[in-house]
């Protein structure tokens, strides 16, 4: 830049060719639309050119260049915001998206739980399913399984311990 400020056009061109790729990468990280990103890149390059007299050769060039780039990007967002050009946010779409995400997560959890339960002995699996998934009481479960209440409690306790062991092993 020092040479460019002294009138060396070749150095000026080299400078702009070398700062364009990192600037383009920075903009593309923030703006998806390639055409918009290229438009903003050109605006930033012109801004750097217009502010070239404010660069002090004793300071790092990178910080100066990126300060201008960040400022122009902020201007771009501000302009979009003021012109209402940001894509409108539809609450119904958002609710639907969240619901879809919930369903997906719920399904994943359910499938994982099913796999874990399959690893339990049949009797323990049925007790856990009745008590924890279907929400039956210990007494109802005992009646349905034709077992005593203490026996159901002991079986449930063993099932939980086995499940915890399996899950911990899977996590590791």
């Amino acid at each position, binding site marked *: *830049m020092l040479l*460019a*400020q002294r*009138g060396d*056009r070749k150095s*000026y*061109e080299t400078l*702009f*060719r070398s700062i*364009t790729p990192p600037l383009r990468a920075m903009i593309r990280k923030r703006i998806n639309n390639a055409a918009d990103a*290229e438009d903003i*890149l*050109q*605006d930033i*390059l*012109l*801004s750097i*050119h*217009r*502010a*070239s*007299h*404010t*660069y*002090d*050769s004793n*300071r*790092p060039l990178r*910080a*100066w260049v990126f*300060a*201008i780039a*960040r*400022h*122009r990007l902020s*201007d771009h967002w501000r*302009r979009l915001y003021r012109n209402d050009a940001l894509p409108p946010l539809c609450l119904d779409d958002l609710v639907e998206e969240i619901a879809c995400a919930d369903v997906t997560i719920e399904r994943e959890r359910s499938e994982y739980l099913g796999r874990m339960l399959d690893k339990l002995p049949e009797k323990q699996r049925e007790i856990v399913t009745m008590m924890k998934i279907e929400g039956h009481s210990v007494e109802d479960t005992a009646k349905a399984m034709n077992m005593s209440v203490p026996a159901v409690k002991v079986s449930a306790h063993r099932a939980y311990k086995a499940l915890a062991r399996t899950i911990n092993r899977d996590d590791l």
Partner: protein
Amino acid sequence: MDTDETIAQIVAEGAGKPLLRPARQLGLWLPGTLAYVAMLSFIMGWRDDLAARLSDPFYAAEIATLAGLGISAALASLFLSRPDAMQKPFIRFVPLTFLALWAATAFGRPHENLAAEAVHEILNCDLACALEILLYAFPPATALYLSGRRGAGTRPGWQGFLIVLSTGAIGYLGLRVIEPVDDAAHLIILHVLPVTILCAVGALMGRIWLRWPRKIKTA
């Protein structure tokens, strides 16, 4: 126009000649401002008790902190006229230290009947002091605004605020050496308040006059 064409156009125009460093810009601005303040004070007449008042450490400290505030705010505004603030963005807070010191030296002592006197000053609102502050501040502020416009600052609001804070402090200082009034209520209502309002206006003007154009065009 694609990016390569833009670069070619930029290169054809060439880089601008570098601006003077902020300290050097200050070195050009400060003597002119001091000369203007001295000339204006001489025309309007120094306060009769100036020599005696300067022997009061609180008054001397107030004058010194006002001068520090004026100079540091001007220097900070010149730093902020660079996009990266010369990698010293914290410099905009330095004048605020002087501001706090000045407030402590000027109004740190307890004042009796301050509220009643303040109400009296409001009711007898006299705009002469505010106009005199404006008279002191306007030419130096214009010079700083023009310097600011030659730069390319990214905090135009701060820049405008600091320019008016600097020149407002100088105006306040000017009035302290010509007006033989040390009454706290008078100073707060008729000196501090106008400077505060001017600072707000300065910040707004900075956002309008010192901001970058929306779309940069080649020559």
